[in-house]
């Protein structure tokens, strides 16, 4: 599955370890938010992960205290019609000021990527869209009405400033 970030296709060096799976001795990895809390609070012994994978029902507010030490948050879209990940990304960026990588994983398709980008997601592990498709999707709209995390500035500000 292609991984696109910052205008380039990059190698995925982070492995997701499902709950109950053995934590690796080396290499970058991510775990569920619940497991992260267990590791952090000493209920499970082991290395701390590099990333946290958020399930759609997870509440970003509970993640807030840990954000400074988290390099990567994977927002999971189990079905691409499930839009909760867009709210999670917006909250992480705009309410809790998270600056690390937010990566969309799961059922990630070309035609969601513009919205993901605007919601604050900056890396896309897609089902099959490669670099050209992702770049095309990001360029499909040059204007946007509402303020958001990134992408075009809100039209009404441009109107006001113009």
């Amino acid at each position, binding site marked *: 599955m292609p991984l696109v970030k910052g205008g380039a296709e990059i190698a995925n060096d982070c492995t997701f370890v499902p709950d109950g799976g053995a934590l690796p001795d080396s290499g970058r990895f991510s775990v569920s938010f619940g497991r992260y809390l267990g590791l952090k609070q000493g209920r499970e012994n082991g290395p701390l992960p590099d990333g946290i994978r958020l399930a759609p029902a997870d509440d970003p507010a509970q993640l807030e205290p840990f954000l400074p030490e988290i390099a990567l948050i994977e927002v999971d879209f189990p079905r691409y019609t499930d839009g*909760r990940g867009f709210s999670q990304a917006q909250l992480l960026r705009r*309410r809790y000021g998270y600056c690390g990588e937010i990566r969309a994983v799961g059922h990630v398709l070309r035609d969601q990527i513009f*919205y993901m980008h605007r919601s604050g997601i900056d890396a896309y592990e897609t089902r099959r869209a490669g670099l050209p498709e992702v770049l095309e999707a990001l360029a499909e709209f040059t*204007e946007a009405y*509402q303020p958001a995390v990134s992408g075009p500035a809100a039209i009404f500000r441009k109107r006001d400033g113009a």
Partner: protein
Amino acid sequence: MYRYDQFDARIVRERVAQFRGQVARRLSGELPEDEFKPLRLQNGVYLQLHAYMLRIAIPYGQLSPVQLRCLAEIARDYDRGFGHFTTRQNIQFNWVALKDIPDVLEKLAEVEMHAIQTSGNCIRNTTTDHFAGAAQDEVLDPRAWCEIIRQWSTFHPEFAFLPRKFKIAVTAAEHDRAAIRVHDVGLHIRQKDGQVGFEVHVGGGQGRTPHIAALVNPFVPEAQILDYLEAIMRVYNRYGRRDNKYKARIKILVSELGEAEYIRQVEEEFAAQRPGEKIDLPASEVARIHAYFAPPDLAPQPVVSKTLEAAKAADPAFARWTRANLHPHKVAGFATVTVSLKPIGAAPGDATDTQMEIVADLAEKYGYGDIRVSHAQNLILPHVALDDLPAVYAALDAAGLGAANESRITDMIVCPGLDYCNLANARSIPVALAVQKVFADPAYEEDIGKLHINVSGCINACGHHHVGHIGILGVDKKGEEFYQILLGGRADEKAALGEIVGPGLKADAVPAAIHRVVEFYRAERTSPAEKFIDTLERLGHQRFQEALYAAG
């Protein structure tokens, strides 16, 4: 009316190009149907029984003559010569080929129209009072705020994959003609201490589990309304049910949480917004959009028009039409005209290409270039001088648009039903037409007075049967169509859900049953001034029910 600037125009053009690409990928097989479906739906493209259907947005029901002529052209060139106006004040075409849809969208873009978010699990076309800007009882023209909401909700990056569709309606009049209490969000614009604000209702809806909306906030100042809507949307996007399509609307979230807890969650989310999250719409932008909706320059005329009075005296049919299809206007000497799309014997809400062009011409010549679509599936000319009414009527009547039945028993809201729709269990249009026939005598219909009959071909309730004074719901029982009758629904400021009164009837028994109910009303009303719904509320349902089922 609102006109696109460079930004609006660019967004719509970019959307056309995007959809052209999506269709090409679908036709080449690169995009499988299950992944294409949400994309085409957000562009108003449904796969229906016979063909693709294209639903075109008519934001808050407003059209210019140029736009209506463009719709006529599409009807002629890409459909079978007619279009169907919908209860969301939109229009749909039932016979457009998928490969042609990008070209149709391109044509629409040229007249500042689109099909964005006319379907799918996103924020749909915002609807409003079809008399907006002309009605005497509004505190201000609600269309400017509808346009602001249209822009805010268009391609909103966070709310494009909601649990389910989302519909917003706005009114600024005490008498609610926009059915705000049966919408996901209903906004009533009010003025308090010189300030404009919104009374916010959430969680109304029809479908299989109808609800009247909860009053969530009595007054949100206008400067905060978009932020408040964001809070409503975010709570819904995060916590609305996604496990069951039929429990996914916001009404279920509100009812499962309970009103108090739901309100607490919205208020908590609203209070948590940080300054950087606020939409902070500049006052200049609000003023800019309001300016587009400045009223036309109407010079007040005498309240009594001699031309009109003479024409009424000369032609009883015209006189009857003026009694039924006119609504009082803000400016003396003017009236708001309803162009009925419910002639006896035709599919409710349909208009042919020629009819659309005639209405466009009339709007240009007599109506200050303003046309509206009502949620009752009629067209409106909001500003017509009383002196011009005879000419307007003559042209309408010659085009088969002269029915004198606005808000009368033959002015029914009817879904397309089993004849067109994938979801339907029963036919709607034939049963509606059979009922219409019973009341086809204009004098009889006028004597009955105001009475809304709404007909749906399945429990999804596209024909609004829950809020008809009389509702008719088609159901399928072991392969046979039956019709359940509901009594006592209403969609206005006293919104109420109709109650099913007893066992379903076969299609051929429906007209006589409705006739008995109406005759019972006529016998029991205190005077012809007492409306059907008022008599029903005074006497209760029981005796009407007996009339309904009385041996015929």
